[in-house]
């Protein structure tokens, strides 16, 4: 087989943002731009372009200098000198390329380890390739596998289970205190970028609504409009504390605005419903002593930072486990790919046929009674064997004929393997994504 899988690209580790900007390929159609063509060296291609990486996944002829070819195409398309690319790009082939793709899909190569955006970006890139007809047997299979590897990594390791940003850590903590955020309201005391970010996170996590309390009511009202919430004057802070369960505080006040002794009264009026304070102001807005009260939880900015750092360290550990999963799946994929050769497929077909024949034969012999006539048994054995060989003869010779033709061999072998279910695999949910897109587009 003269086809090989190549992965050429650059990422945030190999290239600075200036290079990444110049060589971004956010809207490039490899088929239309002439990279993939029927007679050419490249038979399949997919381009992934995000702010942290640009990568070409290409299936093409082994003989061509694929790296040079892709770099030239890339530089021409961006109207940049190709020399600028050389020192920043990597080129993987075969197993290494598969490994790289799976690693990227599992977000083990992301700037923040385990952040899941890359999977969505990869899905978009794949969809584009399918729509343009640039993804065929190998890229289809490769991407389906990449998605399932990513899923395995997410479910079997804790790599993405902890928050690595301060505002998200706050949301996660809120989830440890309250079962269902939709039953709880949030209160924003004071404004500020980080407070607003945390409020946005809380809203998207499902918090019922947001109340804003600010020294200047007008500013509070403006902020409240932004979150479709309501504003209350600063004097009514204690009233607001009765009605809300998650409080984000970030005022510029030099002294504490919520004190432990006031809180006791508030708690009684709240009938001890739990309340969670997130104090991101420096100097702090909330008396640290209130953390000692029952049903009151307080995290300040340093506590949250610590949570984030611990989570990041935890991700590093989980990444080890994830790499093991990736390695496993890479070798499974390579086994499948080797199976695309003609000879192993013929052997597998005949094995399957003979297996069926043997099983059916055994059942039939049993029906002959406890002491079957050896001659009858011999005749039946011959019958089963020759039936199997005759039935498989036509598909096999058809495959042999087709594999003489360059280009279509893999497709036919792949189809035969699937038709006879030689790889004995369950059909994944998104197996027909490519077809759905095509029929949906019509």
């Amino acid at each position, binding site marked *: 087989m003269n086809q090989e899988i190549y992965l050429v690209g650059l990422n945030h580790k190999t290239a600075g943002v200036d290079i990444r900007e110049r060589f971004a390929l956010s809207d490039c159609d490899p088929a239309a731009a002439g990279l993939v063509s029927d007679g050419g060296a490249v038979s399949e291609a997919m381009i992934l372009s995000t702010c942290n990486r640009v990568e070409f996944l290409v299936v093409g002829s082994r003989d061509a200098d694929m790296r040079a070819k892709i770099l030239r195409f890339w530089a021409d398309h961006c109207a940049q000198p190709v020399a600028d690319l050389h020192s920043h790009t990597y080129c993987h082939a075969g197993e290494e390329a598969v490994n790289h793709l799976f690693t990227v899909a599992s977000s083990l190569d992301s700037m923040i380890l385990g952040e899941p955006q890359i999977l969505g970006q990869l899905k978009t890139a794949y969809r584009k390739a399918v729509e343009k007809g640039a993804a065929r047997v190998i890229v289809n299979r490769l991407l389906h596998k990449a998605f399932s590897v990513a899923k395995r990594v997410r479910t079997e390791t804790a790599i993405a289970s902890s928050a690595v940003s301060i505002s998200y850590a706050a949301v996660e*903590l809120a989830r*440890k*205190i*309250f*079962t269902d955020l939709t039953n709880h309201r949030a209160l924003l005391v004071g404004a500020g970028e980080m407070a607003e970010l945390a409020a946005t996170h809380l809203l998207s996590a499902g918090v019922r609504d947001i109340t804003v309390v600010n020294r200047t009511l007008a500013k509070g009202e403006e902020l409240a409009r932004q979150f479709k919430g309501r504003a209350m004057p600063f004097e009514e802070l204690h009233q607001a504390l009765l009605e809300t369960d998650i409080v984000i505080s970030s005022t510029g006040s030099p002294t504490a605005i919520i004190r432990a002794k006031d809180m006791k009264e508030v708690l009684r009026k709240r009938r001890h419903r739990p309340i969670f304070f997130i104090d991101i102001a420096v100097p702090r807005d909330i008396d640290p002593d209130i953390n000692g009260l029952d*049903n009151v939880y307080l*995290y300040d900015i340093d506590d949250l930072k*610590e949570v984030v750092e611990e989570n990041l360290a935890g991700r590093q550990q989980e990444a080890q486990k994830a790499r093991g999963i990736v390695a496993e799946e890479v070798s499974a994929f390579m086994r499948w790919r080797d199976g695309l050769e003609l000879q192993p497929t013929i052997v597998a077909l005949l094995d399957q046929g003979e297996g069926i024949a043997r099983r059916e034969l055994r059942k039939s012999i049993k029906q002959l009674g406890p002491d079957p006539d050896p001659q009858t048994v011999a005749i039946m054995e011959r019958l089963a064997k020759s039936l199997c060989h005759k039935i498989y003869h036509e598909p096999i010779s058809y495959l042999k004929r087709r594999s003489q033709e360059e280009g279509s061999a893999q497709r036919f072998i792949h189809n035969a393997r699937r038709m006879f279910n030689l790889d004995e695999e369950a059909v994944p949910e998104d197996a027909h994504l490519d077809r759905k897109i095509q029929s949906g587009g019509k």
Partner: protein
Amino acid sequence: MTASRLFELIIALLYLAGSISYPLGLALRRPALKRIAAWTSAAAFGLHTVDLGLRFMEVGAANLQHGQFYMSLMAWFFVLIFFMLWWKLKHDFLSMITAPLALILFSSSLAVRTQVLAVPEHFSVLWFSLHVGTIFVSLALIAMAFGAGLAYLHLERLIKTKAKLPGFSKELPSLETFDKANHWAVSIGFPLYSISVLAGFLWASFTWKKVISWDPKELITIVIWALFALLFHQRMVLGWRGRKPAKTAIILFILCLVSLVGVNFLLPSHHSFRQ
């Protein structure tokens, strides 16, 4: 006898497998282990049902005079009630306490080989089911509140001390969930417990012509009831939440265990399962 003994041993082993594999599955993040835990517990429960049925067919109502049968029946009831609670609350943590509790109760039923119990005269099925049925349900609820209370205190300490939440705790539900379990246990459990105690005293007054006979079981029951009443009042009227009800539920359950094991097996009492 040996065959039924073997059967019971298998049930105990299945409960044991369930009790071990669930926390293991949580700790190792293996959903498969959790499923195994659910299936082994379900299998244990099925066999347990068969075992109780066989026993009942064998000896009939006379079973009610065996302490061993009570323990086994109670274990069975616990699993049943926990299953219904799980159905209603959909909280995984229930699985964590169900199998171990069933295991403890069931194996203690295996450990005791008691003589025939002196059931009071005027023995009536109605009184009996009122007295024993309600106590089973409320004990199961207290056990649930105990488990939820332990989990609450653990998680609360982690959050309050800002300790790192290890993988195991990540899978835990929220504090509010545990508190809700306590709420359920208290609001349903206390009335049932009261009915049970009342039924017991009434029954006693019919049978022995006196309401209280200063039996150790009766004394500890009054203590438990008083504590339970306090918890019920504070929770329902004053809106207690979180730590205090969690701690009270833990003490309550320990007292119940003392009453169940200590009094029924160790002290002279007319609730005794001893010889």
